[in-house]
């Protein structure tokens, strides 16, 4: 699992690569939270283009970051999930809470 976060003018993009499950979500959660708390971005977009697998652990990860972003006065977006990963998102109803583009 790999994460690359770039920030410019209050907006940040976190590009994730690899598989999201309960095991890998722990490290992702910690890295994303550290960034959100330290940088307080107005917008954090998580780019899922290079995520090759995600189970419901990914839903917990998104919901938790969405909550933290709201607490910090910002917005979370999810970008470019593969069709298969979008199915897991649709099943969870997360698109009612987070913008998925």
């Amino acid at each position: 699992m790999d994460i690359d976060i770039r920030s410019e003018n209050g907006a940040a993009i976190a590009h994730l690569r690899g598989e999201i499950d309960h095991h890998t979500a722990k490290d992702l959660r910690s890295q994303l939270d550290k960034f959100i708390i330290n940088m307080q971005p107005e917008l954090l977009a998580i780019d899922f283009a290079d995520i090759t697998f995600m189970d419901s652990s990914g839903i917990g990860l998104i919901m938790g970051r969405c909550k933290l972003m709201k607490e910090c006065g910002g917005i979370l977006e999810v970008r470019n999930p593969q069709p298969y990963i979008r199915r897991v998102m649709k099943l969870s109803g997360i698109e009612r809470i987070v913008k998925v583009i």
Partner: protein
Amino acid sequence: MEVLNEVKFTMPSLSVNEGTARAFVSSFIVQADPTVEELSDIRTAVSEAVTNAIVHGYRGTEGKIELTVRLLSGREIYIRIKDSGCGIPDVKQAMEPLYTTSPEEERSGLGFSVMESFMDKLTVRSRVGRGTVVTMRKRLSVHGR
């Protein structure tokens, strides 16, 4: 239903083995030539069941998880995931969407919902103090034949 092929695999309940279990099941069922979507569905359901065993069955303690995968006649895949963990007191309640006993770990409570949606059949048998057995079946499509 005739068993055409079968593999069994036992692993410790380490979270890193969630990926191991997915890889093991994928490598076995590839012989049945599933579609990309079917393979994804099965991998996700297995990941959910193994994660449940690790997070809820063993709750941070280490135990064994047994995985059995069968290829049955009629292009049906049978998967059994067994743990000897704490068991589920109320299976019906545990299977309700969004029900979780681990919100602090950001468990979404969707594990059984994903298994039910992505597989054709799901059976959960559990005894408190003895463990849980999750059985799933999925019939693969006949494509390109």
